[in-house]
């Protein structure tokens, strides 16, 4: 076990819970409570909220923004920001749509071209930020305007491009139970595989730490964690199968999250991101190629934005001039921040994007179910964002005070 955190203030259950929550391992717990609370409230007010139909819709609604938020998590780990992700998501979708519909490029290649366009754009941002030492805030703000122009010019004077390509539409529009023969069984296999991989990963990590003589989590807490993920994951499959089945958008989204979670936690490159974000000087002294890491992260962020944009287009069956504008950027930032990635750099994980997207998406979905007027909706979302960041800042201060 790590050095015990000083138990602050008395021995009430709440104080104990709070002191545990302050530990980085449990950074997700307050938000899980928050999400449970949000769900419980909406379910009480509108019994349609926790139905398979609505939860399936919720999953579809968050997949695109969540994917974009994964990229933002990486950028926030660096202690930087990317304000262009919304517009880049629209532009990448437009590149894909125009190539496919107007130029007749096959669907898969058009999708790759869209993703590639995202990567290239991010690489340009990153190079500018790193080599010319212009703040990321400025470069990506400029990018937001410039890429909006590119989006309009790519779409041309027809405005909206309707998507018909079966491959592109299948990205977000396939439901395993409804559209795939034997899909219901397959979705259980995918869910089971996911949970077992998660368990094996945790166990392996613990074993390595113990072998290296490092402090490791208790077996009990690991089992509990796997239990939670198992119930959550398989429960989700059961719920989705009560409607149209597991949506392909969710599989892609979670696949991306698992991949980047692995990258950030288990590879040298991924671990370097947080080091560069937390202390660039230390990173330099450790002989890390700080510039390359920064540029790559901006490249990945725009690439993930492109993936999100393509998912959104596949769901809307169209790309139009305001694709990626509106509240896409703000929701993605909110998702990344609410999920528990510190805006101060160097802390947090990719799974935060899932949690944050679920919180933002649930609020939006629930308020639509209650038919809340748009002005109120915006204000509530703003308040939740502020509340979550405040929670993060307070927790951070307490952690620092406790020397963690």
């Amino acid at each position: 076990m790590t050095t015990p955190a000083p138990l602050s203030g008395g021995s009430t259950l709440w104080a104990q819970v709070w002191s545990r929550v302050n530990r980085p391992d449990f950074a997700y717990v307050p938000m899980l409570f928050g999400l449970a609370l949000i769900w419980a409230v909406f379910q009480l007010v509108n019994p349609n909220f926790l139905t398979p139909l609505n939860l399936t819709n919720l999953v579809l609604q968050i997949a695109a923004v969540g994917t974009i938020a994964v990229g933002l998590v990486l950028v926030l780990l660096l202690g930087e920001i990317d304000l262009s992700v919304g517009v880049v998501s629209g532009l990448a979708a437009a590149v894909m749509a125009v190539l496919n519909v107007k130029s007749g490029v096959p669907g898969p290649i058009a999708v790759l071209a869209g993703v590639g366009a995202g990567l290239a754009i991010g690489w340009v941002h990153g190079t500018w930020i790193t080599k010319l030492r212009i703040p990321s805030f400025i470069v990506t703000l400029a990018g937001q305007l410039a890429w909006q122009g590119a989006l309009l010019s790519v779409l041309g004077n027809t405005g909206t491009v309707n998507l018909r390509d079966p491959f592109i539409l299948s990205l977000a529009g396939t439901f395993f139970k409804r559209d795939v023969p034997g899909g219901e069984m397959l979705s259980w296999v995918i869910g089971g595989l996911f949970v077992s991989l998660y368990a094996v990963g945790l166990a392996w990590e613990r074993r390595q730490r113990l072998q290296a003589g490092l402090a490791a989590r208790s077996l009990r807490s690991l089992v509990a964690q796997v239990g939670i993920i198992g119930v959550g994951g398989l429960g989700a499959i059961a719920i989705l199968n009560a409607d149209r089945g597991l949506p392909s958008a969710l599989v892609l989204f979670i696949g991306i999250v698992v991949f980047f979670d692995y990258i950030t936690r288990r590879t040298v490159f991924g671990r370097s991101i947080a080091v560069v974000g937390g202390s660039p000087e230390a990173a330099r002294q450790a002989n890390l190629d700080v510039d390359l890491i920064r540029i790559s992260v901006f490249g990945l962020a725009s690439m993930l934005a492109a993936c999100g944009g393509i998912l959104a287009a596949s769901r809307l069956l169209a790309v139009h001039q305001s694709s990626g504008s509106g509240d896409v950027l703000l929701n993605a930032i909110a998702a990344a921040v609410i999920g528990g990635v510190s805006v101060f750099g160097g802390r947090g994980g990719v799974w935060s994007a899932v949690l944050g997207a679920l919180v933002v998406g649930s609020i939006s979905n629930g308020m639509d179910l209650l038919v809340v007027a748009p002005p109120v909706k915006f204000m509530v979302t703003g308040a939740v964002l502020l509340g979550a960041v405040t929670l993060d800042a307070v927790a951070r201060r307490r952690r620092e005070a406790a020397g963690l």
Partner: protein
Amino acid sequence: MTRQRSLHASMVRRVLSTQAIMRITLAFWLVLVALAVGCAPPAAPTQGKIAFLLPETKTTRYESHDLPIFRAQLAALGFNVERDLIYSNATQDAAAQQQQAEAALTNGARVLVLDPVDSSSATAIAELAKARGVPVVAYDRLITDSAAVDYYVSFDNVEVGRLQAEALVAALTGEGNPQIVMLNGSPLDSNTTQYRQGAMAVLDGRVTIAQSFDVPDWSPDKAQEFMAQALTALGNQVDGVYVANDGMAGGAIAAMKAAGLSPLPPVTGQDAELAAIQRILVGEQYMTVYKAIHREATAAADLAYQLWLGRTPDPAQFNAQVDNGRIQVPAILLKPISVTRVNLRDTIFADQFWDPVEVCVGEYAVACVTAGIGIEEGVP
């Protein structure tokens, strides 16, 4: 001894609190999952609802006319609007509208009356409704390129463009070769194409279109910017301005005032917004197209009510078949009316579309008297 005991106690507490967190979280999820599964068969709505989805709030007509009239007509038919009418406004965001439509269907909508933000991408909404056996009425704007649209209620949009252009040409009689600027509506809106089609049929060969813009989102601000730039480019030599709606006409007029044009050239509009009626009274705007939204919203409410009862609508009420690029959609198309200062009194005010008390305020009071619009007359 004491030290040992307190150490022991703190360890116990540590384990306990770790477990407590895990247990509480686990319990929460279990309860939620149980709730979700328990509610699995959504209480089949015996009654069902009518969903009315409007696109934006920037143009005043939607929330000040369409919604209250639609609601009142349904109420008059005996429909419980408090309980069974779902209204959402997408604030000009196509993705938000998709989410609102999904919410409406989840809430048990049995009829969808949809005024789409984007005529093309609303296809996704129509298909979703179709898959759940919910009939879709396209309201005011058509849903294009989809076989899932059942009915269409709107104005004859080609006629709107024709009326605007005819009024403009009439106002320009006597000019040698009039030079005009054209401000069309949002390129996302299928109506824009039809307005332009109607207008061009009249304008072609009779005026010179010096500059033409498709204004994103029907934005008055952007219309003002475009107009200012056009005036600069043309050295203020503009004889008339074709503007597709009143909001943008306001922007164009502001730009011309800022450029010091006097007298202002004739400007067209559409929607009979309050501000436009006032501008027409004082001669800043030449005309607007009055679409009796009352009849449009009433017709849509009647149709929605028939569908809600599960009846097949009487084919006699449809006066047109509109091609949406995929199918011929049975449509109720209403006739728009051209309004200038001359017939303001007999149209807008006779229909009580606006109350003179609201229109004839401040500097407009004198103009109202001149035009024969008295506050007494407005009181029914």
